[in-house]
């Protein structure tokens, strides 16, 4: 009988993270300081992040040890299972083999705690007492609340006000894990006060919440800031997924032909695929296709330009070389809130720009159609973000049916959708809007702009 779950023993949790910067043909371009436009130095980041994370951010060492205390926490849910999607294959009647690694088994229900736990640990080690962060619908906030809870740190979370009011479940989760959660904009920060003076009814945005959390960190002794995606050290922590995945594939003597993952900031998919992209960079398995999946509403990799841009709307964060739709672009309100980011992780963008990785974009309705088929065959109800790569995997499996190819298809199943059932409900009731990015008109509008 063919194996459905490919499992590793607890002692097989990786002891090191993989840093892809060591294997890049050319070094990544540095972050620039938003004020001086000079390359960012370690001391520029010191008020915001602990030194160990800054070192990891800039490191070119291939292997970085995972502290035993972090591995010990990982044991609560890691190693995560690799599944063979046998029932989905049968439903699709495809000769392809579909695999997915299921990160929904973590306590907060996604891949996010892989870095939240590590970040909380390093902050604790350096004597930080409190972490401040932002969260949109609550996915990242709940992961950090969980991480700080285990290392006995205080945690302050600025949650976009409209989510705070309308999406209480993730907020409750954060509070169970001991975090204090405030609807942003708040009167706790100057940024928040200014916005509320102008518009007392302001429902908030992720950009405002980032600014509030950053201000909180830099104006309070013993407080640092924490970011859940995009940055190199976050991607690094997530490679624990891909390193497990490699061992799991080795165990059954399989190597993927296709890897799909959803990309919002890029940390989840980078974590799964970087150990395999590392093979490609060394000239091994050159035919492996590594494809990022994104929404047509916010098609950063498929329609954006590769340029230096700000990481946030307030232009406080460093300027990075990445694919971007412009830091002033506010993506439409799709259900996959985690994919609504104007840029992407600089490392993932560089690999895409250089042709080691590809990208594809989908509308909401076909994405939920695929996720529903997945739920009806494999049982798991995946997050709207994850549903994007489920769609890609199903499309590829269908293509294999046409051609008769027995390809190995993998997708990164990054989390469950139990807090997103309203999105499924909207899909079933025909209420989902399909968004697009009018690239031709955007280009037309940019043509005559003065070049800076």
């Amino acid at each position: 009988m063919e194996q459905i779950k490919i499992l590793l023993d607890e002692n097989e949790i990786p002891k090191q993270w993989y840093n892809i910067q060591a294997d890049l043909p050319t070094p990544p371009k540095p972050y620039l300081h938003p004020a001086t436009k000079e390359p960012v130095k370690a001391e520029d980041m010191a008020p915001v992040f602990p030194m160990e994370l800054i070192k990891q951010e800039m490191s070119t060492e291939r292997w970085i040890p995972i502290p035993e205390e972090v591995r010990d926490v990982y044991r609560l849910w890691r190693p995560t299972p690799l599944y063979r999607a046998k029932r989905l294959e049968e439903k699709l009647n495809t000769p392809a083999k579909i695999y997915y690694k299921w990160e929904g088994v973590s306590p907060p229900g996604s891949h996010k705690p892989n870095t939240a736990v590590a970040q909380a640990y390093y902050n604790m080690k350096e004597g930080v007492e409190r972490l401040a962060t932002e969260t949109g619908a609550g996915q990242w906030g709940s992961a950090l609340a969980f991480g700080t809870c285990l290392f006995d740190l205080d945690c302050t979370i600025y949650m976009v006000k409209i989510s705070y009011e309308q999406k209480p479940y993730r907020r409750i989760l954060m509070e169970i894990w001991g975090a204090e959660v405030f609807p942003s904009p708040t009167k706790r920060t100057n940024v928040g006060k200014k916005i509320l003076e102008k518009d007392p009814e302001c429902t908030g945005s992720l950009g405002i919440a980032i600014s509030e959390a950053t201000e909180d960190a830099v104006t309070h002794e013993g407080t640092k800031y924490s970011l859940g995606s995009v940055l190199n050290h976050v991607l690094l922590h997530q490679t624990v997924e891909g390193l497990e995945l490699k061992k799991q594939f080795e165990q059954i003597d399989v190597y993927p032909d296709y890897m799909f993952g959803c990309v919002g900031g890029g940390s989840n998919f980078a974590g799964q695929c970087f150990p395999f992209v590392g093979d490609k960079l060394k000239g091994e398995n050159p035919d492996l296709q590594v494809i990022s999946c994104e929404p047509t509403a916010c098609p950063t990799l498929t329609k954006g330009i590769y340029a230096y841009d700000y990481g946030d709307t307030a232009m406080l964060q460093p300027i990075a070389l990445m694919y971007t739709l412009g830091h002033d672009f506010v993506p439409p309100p799709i259900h996959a809130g985690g994919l609504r980011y104007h840029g992407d992780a600089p490392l993932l963008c560089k690999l895409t720009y250089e042709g080691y990785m590809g990208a594809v974009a989908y509308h909401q309705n076909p994405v939920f159609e695929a996720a529903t088929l997945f739920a009806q065959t494999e049982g798991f109800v995946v997050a709207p973000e994850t549903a994007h790569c489920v769609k890609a995997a199903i499309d590829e499996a269908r293509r294999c049916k046409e051609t008769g190819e027995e390809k190995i298809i993998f997708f990164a199943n990054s989390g469950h959708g139990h807090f997103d059932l309203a999105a499924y409900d909207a899909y079933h009731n025909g209420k989902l809007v399909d968004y697009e990015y009018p690239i031709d008109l955007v280009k037309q509008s940019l043509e005559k702009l003065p070049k800076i």
Partner: protein
Amino acid sequence: MAGSSSYMYKIGFLVNPIAGMGGAVGLKGTDGKSYLEEAIKRGAIPLSPRKAKVTLQKLYEYRHDFTLLTCSGVMGENIIKEVGYKKYTVLYHLEGPNYSTAEDTKKVCNLFLEFKVDFILFCGGDGTARDIFTVVREEIPILGIPAGVKMHSAVFGITPKISSEIVKMFLKGKTETQEAEIMDTDENLYRKGRLQTKIYGYAKTPYVPTLVQAGKSIFYNESDSESKENIAQFAYEFMNDDSLYILGAGTTIEAIASKLKIKKTLLGVDLVKNRKLIMADVNEKEILDVLEKEKKAKILISPIGAQGFIFGRGNQQISHQVIKKVGIDNIIILATPYKLSKTPILLVDTGDEELDKKLSGYQRIITGYRIAQRHQIGLNTA
């Protein structure tokens, strides 16, 4: 004032007792006395009193928050009494026993203006809406209880019950007002099989902003006017490309014109190039003449009315000849998310079946700054 519990709202209430009577007996409307007599002869039963009653019944529990100012008999008072309201004022006494005329409606509306009602709740169709609008213009918000045969105007609740929900939200101070097209069809042409719909202007109507839908980050932090502003900003940025722009009717397109600092013909079509007005209020022939001289042209158009017609109602100057000359790839459709949520089905009726087929199917609609939605456009089968 809105939202304060001590304030007693004054609602002007008016029923067109004969609205909708022509539909069931195949007369396509009852505008004009002879058609009314014919409708009655054919056995038409008054529909609007029943519909108006539903709305008033649903509002009964809120009766202490408002007072009704109305007309005698079939034009309002009968239904008010039937539902059981005690507090109301009859401003106008109807002379004819069973039905009212457009003149009656207009006289009542003059009284509504005089008595400064907070808004007008009426039951009828496009003809009634048009008669009211002729008098009150945008001075008083109006809301329709749907009862007519023709309801292209955007002032109607979808059902009598929904009209009552909007009134309730109005009483709680939870509505905003927006412009709504007042449209009417020429009934004589319609009876001959030709649908000629004209926009008569923009009334004010209360609406409930759909700020929050259930679901992760499915919320618009923007009002309808902010959406228009965002669309206008985007359009302003891309309209500098040496193309001739044919600007259709409507308030979304007007927002673009005002961004360009151009005085737009609200109910007509204007020509713009490199952000400058070339010609105002053009007819079909004038557009075709200008197109002869232009290398590149684009059409900026927005869905019109309650049915969401993109071509064929209210924008007749942009005929099928004009569209073919410009090319369907050069049509840019724009609409606010709110408008699209109200009109889930969009339609085209250019009078050229082949062209309508080409325009139908999935189309991109600009809904914000660098944001578009994909929507299905259907053929008009009505």
